[in-house]
């Protein structure tokens, strides 16, 4: 399992036709732990996520991964470096089997070169790792099924599985609990707890209860800016945050 990586931004800004979705954000996400980003709708959380993962290019500012500047690095390169991202709207390979989904993720970071005439079947290491990951996320039973036939909750778990399978140092999870029932939520929280290890997990979530329970630190965003950063306790007691949320906190 990998150790965690750290992310740092300097003056990160992203505007869309005049609208500043993320404005001059300077943020440090240290190694390890669960770092959650919360905030009201439109605060810029998803945009920040998209900037960190490479889906969007910043209008201004820089992003660092440890000591390496990754500001203009393409998403696939970031993934190779160990920054993996899951999606809010389930983004799996629907027609392929569950096993194939995970196998592809494992193979992506395996050795960088696609073996040409080498039947994928005999890449033993990759297959074994894939099976292990499937076990970790509890989907071994559904291995042969087309991914699109899974229940919503299972698909969300596969979504996390894809991220996990690339053995990243940083996991960017975009609202992993979206649309889940209480049972599914608990299962997924457990899963996140299990896979953490020494990795850095950066989370965007709306479920404040869960956020309070599992986060090592929380960053609160509002109108494209960071309002406050701190431990769950500190955030709970923060005046500015209280005002922003008006009683949403426990």
């Amino acid at each position, binding site marked *: 399992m990998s150790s965690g990586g750290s992310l740092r931004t300097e003056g990160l800004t992203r505007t869309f036709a005049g609208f500043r979705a993320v404005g001059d954000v300077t943020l440090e996400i240290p190694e390890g732990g669960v770092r959650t980003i919360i905030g009201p709708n439109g605060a810029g959380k998803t945009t920040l996520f998209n900037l960190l*993962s490479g889906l969007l290019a910043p209008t201004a500012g820089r992003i660092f991964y440890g000591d390496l500047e990754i500001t203009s690095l*393409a*998403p*696939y390169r970031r*993934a*190779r470096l160990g920054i*993996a*991202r899951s*999606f809010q*709207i389930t*983004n*799996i*390979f*629907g*027609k*392929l089997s569950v096993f*194939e989904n995970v*196998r*592809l*993720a494992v*193979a*992506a*970071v395996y050795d960088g070169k*696609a*073996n*040409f*005439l*080498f*039947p*994928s*079947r005999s*890449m033993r290491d990759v297959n074994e790792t894939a099976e292990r990951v499937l076990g970790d996320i509890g989907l071994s039973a559904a291995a042969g099924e087309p991914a*699109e036939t899974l229940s919503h909750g299972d698909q969300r778990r596969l979504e996390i599985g*894809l991220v996990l399978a*690339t053995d990243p140092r940083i996991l960017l999870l975009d609202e992993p609990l979206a649309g889940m029932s209480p049972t599914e939520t608990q299962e997924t929280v457990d899963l996140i707890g299990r896979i953490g290890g020494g990795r850095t997990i950066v989370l965007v979530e709306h479920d404040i209860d869960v956020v309070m329970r599992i986060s090592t630190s929380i960053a609160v965003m509002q109108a494209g800016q960071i309002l406050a950063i701190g431990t769950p306790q500190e955030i709970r007691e923060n005046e500015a945050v209280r005002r922003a949320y008006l009683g949403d906190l426990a």
Partner: protein
Amino acid sequence: MKPDRPWLTLAGIAIALGLLPFFMPDGTLDLFPFAGARLPFHAGFVDLATTILVFGLFAIGFNLLFGHTGELSFGHAMFFALGAYATALFAKGFDVMVGPVHLQFAGSGNALLALAVALTLVALWAWLLARVIVPRSSGIYYSMITLAFAQVIYFIAFHWGDLTGGEDGLQGIPRPEVPGLPPGWLGDGVHFYIAAAVVAFAAIVINYGIVRSNFGSVLRAIRENKQRARFLGYDVEKYRINAFVLSALFPALGGWLWAYFQQSVNPDAGSVDFSGRVVMMSLLGGINSFAGPILGSFVYWDLQNRFARFDRYWPEIIGIVFVFVVLLAPRGITGAVEDLRRYGVGAMVRRSPGRRSERPAP
């Protein structure tokens, strides 16, 4: 989808290739009825079988791109044409002025060298094109651009008479000699079929390897969800470019065979029509299956052969069949058979590939 016993499948294909000529209807094969005097060609059943193989190879290449990677190239005939013309010019030689430069070649009977030249030329052109097209487009935009570039090849073939023979093309390409076999051995239709079948089988084996390889599975991932493939760490653009180049080599091989088979080439080999037909063959056979392209070629030529004999306007029949397939049986024959076996008639339509829901934002 992937068969479990590769040797069985390959052996099955080898046997099918061996038996193919026996399934051909007797009679004439009038390939281009509306070209009038261009290519009247009367042949027995073996020649139809050879034609099926050639186009089957063409379709295999196309399907690598469409069925597996999910990209519809509507100009794949250009690779076929380039392969055919390269072979023809290599075999017959040429003598042209390109601006101030005088290019001259005496011609050579070495078929294998011709193949090497054809494949290299096609790979180069495909690679250059891919570098321009792939990073800048996808989806139907990609289809339109590939079609447009194919037309460039067509026009050059049509107009650069000094090199290509213009509208009439090049004739009189001698069949190559096979070392170890009596001279003129390939002159006989049956012998040529045997040679073609051996070549085709080799190509099919290679295609099989590609499809079942890690590379192939990444292509399918790209087809399903390009964006996710990127975020897993795959350099999607590089895979798409490589897929494009690879997919071009099969029609090039087909063109090479075609040049020696027909012993002539003309610009039709690079026409929109040709591109369109191979698309049809692929779809007819089933784009998500391995045997689909060859099966599609077989069905297409069988249909054309039958209808061309009694209906002057036979392309409309092909068109109607195609429309029917797209609307009602988009997974082609192999897909329909599979669905019928498993689910019954209604499922055929419902399980069409390429439902929009499975294609999230690229």
